[in-house]
């Protein structure tokens, strides 16, 4: 059974690039346009991995990850932060929120797939 990955990004083109890479590798993908939208998608369904932007309207990526980790069933869901942010302080915040990896845009799709494969068994 294919693993399911939640992509959270307010940029539709970024979601498109990530989704293409992941579906091409056999993953199932759910999309959310911001942190608030992503929380609404965590309705008990099994999510194997989350790839989230940091700067988003309504609820940013760090806040979303913090809230997600409070939800039953999602405490141990691995998170990759995919962002334009490269400041050490932001990375520290992401790590403290529970992220497992930090990817600065632009990214190579193959690089992203390698990171995903490292965090979940394909």
């Amino acid at each position: 059974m294919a693993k399911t990955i939640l992509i959270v990004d307010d940029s539709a083109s970024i979601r498109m690039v990530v989704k293409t890479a992941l579906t091409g590798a056999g993953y199932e993908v759910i999309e959310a346009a911001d942190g608030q939208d992503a929380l609404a998608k965590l309705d008990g369904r099994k999510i194997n991995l989350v790839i989230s932007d940091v700067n988003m309207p309504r609820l940013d990526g760090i806040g979303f990850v913090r809230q997600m980790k409070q939800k039953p069933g999602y405490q141990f869901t691995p998170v990759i932060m995919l962002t334009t942010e490269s400041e050490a302080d932001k990375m520290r915040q992401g790590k403290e929120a529970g992220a497992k990896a930090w990817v600065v845009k632009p990214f190579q799709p193959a690089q992203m797939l390698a990171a995903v494969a490292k965090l979940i068994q394909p």
Partner: protein
Amino acid sequence: MLFGLSAAAALQLSGGSPYIVILLALGGLCCATWLRHAAGSGSAPAVSPDGAPAQAPSLQPDVDGLELLCGRLLPLWQKHLDAVRMQMEEALTALSATFAGLSVQMSQALQASSAEGGESVSAVLDDCRNQLHAVVADLRASLQARASLMDDIGRLSGVAGDLQSMASEVGEIASRTNLLALNASIEAARAGEVGRGFAVVADEVRKLSAQSAQSGQRIRDTVDTVGQALAQTVANAQQLATREHGHMDAAEQRIGLVLTRFERSGDALERASAQLREDGSRIGHEIDHVLVHLQFQDRVGQILAHVMQDIAKLEDFVARGAHREASADDVGAWMDALAATYSTAEQHAIHKGAATPRASAPTEITFF
């Protein structure tokens, strides 16, 4: 002063889009001219990269006019910038979707090509050659078996000769029996009344010998017919075998020619197929490269958003009349607040006075 600073910062931040650069440059020029005119001075005060004025502001511009200009110009800038941001996002999302679709199609085509190319054309041809040669070998074996059958039939011709001599012997015996029966009839007639019964027996023997002679003759005729038929059959079979051997040789030669032609075409096909796979792989990588570059939209979108926020802040600042009492500390605080909104390394570099840097290249992933 603040107006000019914000426009200059926005100009630096706008980076990639010529439309934004022109828009903001015109705005900055307009404001600088306005301030120079209002101050009655030939030059605007110098400003350091971090926004602190080189000397205390001594301007007393026509603030009412400036407020009027800002009140009309700044919202217009925001709308233009928003239009740029939205148009760029829509266009690049469509472009990303197109290239993503191409990437998927290319990947699927390459996978299908690799699956079909699992058995190469030359391997298929080798298999065909082996199977066709096996068919030819089977046909030759059949011809050989029929030749053996014909040899057996030829030997039957010899048997027919034996049967012919046996039939001749039967005819000879019948002739001699007839002669004996005739002599017995003569002797029975000479014996008179006593030999009458023997004369009847002799007559019957003579009749049987005549029938035996006829049977011998029929056997000879039949054996002759069979012998001729066998000889004709063997001759026909030999002619047929000769023709079939010729056909087999011709077929084998044609199979060889056809396979050679296929082999040449197959080699060309295989080279073309390999070239196609190589080109497809290269194009796939180039599409992936395009998809990487298209991600600049996200960075540009964020930079534009920050500029728009700052313009809105300036609009509010001027509308409230706060600029009338703005000090060098206020300018510094403004610049710090702007810096706190940055999300890209380019924004931080520009803020620190660096020349407009190129967009970042893909970086390594940091694992926690």
